[in-house]
């Protein structure tokens, strides 16, 4: 940084980091944007699912094997509103969503929310714990191996690449074989509290930790090379203190951004763990719904995943501002 690029307001009166108005406006804009994204994902999914071949009536009547009469088909069409033009069906669906009505399942003939609703919490628990495990692993790698000599650096790097390239389903099967079947430390399958959550969460967390650690490693390395680290050491701080109070905070910034994407992908990749460990969850519901051509359930799961994704992104935005206060002061400091 040189003199000519110093802030133009040099020597101005002390300023606060941000004004309440600016933050309020930023949040309003983000929420409006989120609603737009949610609407776009609903619309896109709705029309794409209509484009797929096959008649929903077949699904409603229990598969291709049934041979319904013309009258039954016509009556069902009217009942589910499928005789209306697609655009009318779409508007009807949107109207239902606004009232919290996700429609009726074609296959189970019950309100969609009765099926999807109970699945949300198990999947959120799984994805949440997987994220916590992934961060724990990634930070452990970073703190233990970055800048600790060539050998440890190499080991850390290799383990990260290995983890990042492992497919979740393979990790899941290996974990199940070793820790559930052979050692018997954890249940093989089912939904029985925290203990049954550990292995499925780990099977998702291990590949993800590889990705996060690769990002935190490089920013941790960059931070350690910065002059402010030298300043801190020259104040009498020890190596560990410098790593934790200075470098780590810089290192997790890009990882936080990555986490927003990770939660979204965890929600959908959870299906792998849910199937291997026979857990209930959104992923399972989605797979079943797609194979059964149960459009209302498919749509509902997409809406829920999109909503979670959007909420997590909002949360990450806030978290980012907490870790890096410069983000929120940029507007007023320029």
């Amino acid at each position, binding site marked *: *940084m*040189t*003199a*000519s*690029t*110093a*802030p*133009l*307001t*040099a*020597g*101005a009166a*002390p*300023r606060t*980091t941000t004004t309440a108005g600016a933050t309020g406006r930023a949040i309003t804009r983000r929420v409006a944007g989120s609603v737009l994204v949610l609407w776009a994902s609903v619309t896109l999914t709705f029309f794409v699912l209509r484009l797929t071949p096959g008649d929903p009536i077949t699904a409603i009547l229990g598969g291709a094997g049934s041979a319904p009469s013309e009258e039954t088909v016509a009556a069902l069409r009217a009942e589910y509103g499928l005789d209306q033009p697609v655009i009318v069906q779409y508007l009807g669906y949107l109207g239902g969503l606004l009232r919290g009505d996700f429609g009726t399942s074609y296959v189970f003939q019950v309100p969609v929310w009765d099926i999807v609703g109970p699945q949300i919490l198990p999947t959120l628990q799984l994805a949440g714990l997987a994220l916590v495990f992934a961060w724990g692993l990634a930070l452990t790698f970073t703190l233990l191996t970055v800048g600790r*000599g060539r050998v440890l650096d190499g080991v850390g790097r290799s383990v990260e690449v290995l983890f990042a390239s492992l497919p979740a389903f393979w990790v899941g099967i290996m974990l199940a074989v070793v820790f559930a079947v052979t050692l018997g430390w954890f249940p093989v399958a089912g939904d029985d509290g925290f203990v049954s959550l550990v292995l499925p969460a780990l099977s998702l967390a291990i590949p993800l930790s590889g990705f996060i650690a690769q990002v935190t490693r490089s920013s941790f390395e960059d931070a350690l090379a*910065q*002059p*402010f680290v*030298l*300043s*801190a*050491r*020259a*104040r*009498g*701080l*020890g190596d560990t*203190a410098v790593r934790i*109070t*200075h470098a780590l*905070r*810089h290192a997790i910034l890009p990882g936080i951004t990555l986490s927003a994407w990770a939660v979204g992908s965890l929600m959908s990749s959870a299906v792998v763990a849910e199937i291997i460990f026979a857990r209930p969850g959104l992923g399972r519901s989605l797979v079943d719904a797609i194979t059964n051509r149960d459009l209302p359930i498919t749509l509902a799961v997409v809406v829920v995943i999109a909503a979670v994704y959007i909420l997590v992104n909002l949360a990450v935005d806030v978290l980012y501002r907490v*870790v*890096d*206060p*410069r983000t929120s*002061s940029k*507007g*007023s*400091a*320029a």
Partner: protein
Amino acid sequence: MTTPVQHPLLTIDNLNVSFSTPRGPVHVVRDLSLALAPGQALALVGESGSGKTVTARTLVGLNAPNARVTADRLDVLGQDATRLSERRWRALRGKDIGYVLQDALVSLDPLRTVGQEIDEALRAHGVRRAERQERIHAALRDAGIPDPEVRARQRSNELSGGLRQRALIAQATVLDPRLVIADEPTTALDATVQAQILDLLAGLKEQGRGLILISHDLAVVSRLADEIAVMQHGRIVESGRAAEVLGNPQHAYTRQLIDAVPSAAGRGTRLSSVPRVAVGTAPSRTSAFAAEAPALEARTLVKTYPAPDGARRTVVDHVSFTLQPGTTLGIVGESGSGKSTTARIALGLTEPDAGTVTLGGLSWMGHPDGPGIVTEAVRRPHRPDIQLVNQDPLSSFDPRFSVQRVLTDALDAGAVGSPHEREDRAAELLGQVGLPLDLIHRRPLTLSGGQRQRVAIARALALQPRVLLLDEPVSALDVSIQAQVLDLLADLQEQLHLSYLFISHDLGVIHHVADHVLVLKDGRVVESGDASTLFVAPTTAYTRALLDAVPAMPVRTSSAAGSTRTAHTSEGAA
């Protein structure tokens, strides 16, 4: 009770520092000996890579892990530093030795407040919580920072350049260290701020602390140092009392550093001993550029930008200037004075709200009847006539391009000749800026700072311009390299009859190069006129303050060296 004896703070005999690399050891400091007493300031002076910084880091035990330090004697504050454990070093650092780095923007953690950074030093040395807050405020106040309660809660990026450098000094001196090491403490600062920081450091010295000052700029250290040690290639080539070293330099390298400082005395003379370049002929390109008209003329330029609070901030306020052909107009001002915006308007990149610019007699920017009448389509054919050289050439090069590609790329833009002719022209350009031809396939990242700036100048010359806009072209360079680049610019101007618009915050440089000077403050022209009169008899208080802030060198006693250096003749494209 006995009165304490004034022990020396530092006693170093034959210090050697080398780094082990895969290609064998690299010796960075060789047989260095020095001593420092309390209340004294010792300056280590030399170019980048001379070993100054490694020496300083050795004194706080913070060299890279692959460093090997040996010495016959290395006493730091009465302790044998070659035997200190990491624990003992940590007890010294911050408490007895304060270490101040160059740029507070990166030398303080940008995610933490200034107060937190100072607090860390207090906590590391076991100061009780109850006392800490008060001591943080006291340290900031002692470093000359007003409203310490407010400033302590701000981060370095929220402070002005001067305040943040003061905060950096505060965090290094909060525990009253007996020894303060300052590594290029003023290099990135405006002249007036630089003067304030030097005064602050002088105050530390008067309190009886020992001060090690590291700089590449002899003019800066001359203000503060009692002793000067000149370093080159890891050795001290000359050392002694400051007045002695500056007034009667014995070593050729010291003389070279002194001559390199641009100032009034050096006007029209060469600053470096590098040979003159031979450029050959003046531009052959045909252009509507009228040679007899002012090369660049700006009339009452106004530019405003919206401020965050919704009001409009006037960045350029009725600025007028005339750049006569073949001369240099220097624009001086501190950060935020409107220099850069004025430059962008002159380059035809930013449309002014009002006012006009003519380039070689042609309408260039703005129009009396309103903005936007002279369109880019009108300007485009004349763009080769005015070219830009930046402060930081590296970021203006595509890092994947070779030097040749950088130059041919510029030639492609002007569609000059065949591809083969462009390669020949690229080689010719390298010669014009005094670079050897074997650099042509190197990438900018592998070049030194001075070489990069020469490539940037060669690129600016590619399309045979009439006007060069030089925006802080030497501010990022060591003094001795700066001298070579300034000499090159003088040669080019003389032989190619170029006109320079030269922007700098360094008045010494402006005084050396400019025929006319424009002093900007807050977007307004404070003063303008002939360099010879303006620098000798400034009419406004602001210009006087700027001039007073320039670190002045003592008058030289040896002038014989200068005359031999000017006798060098051109040797053409090597």
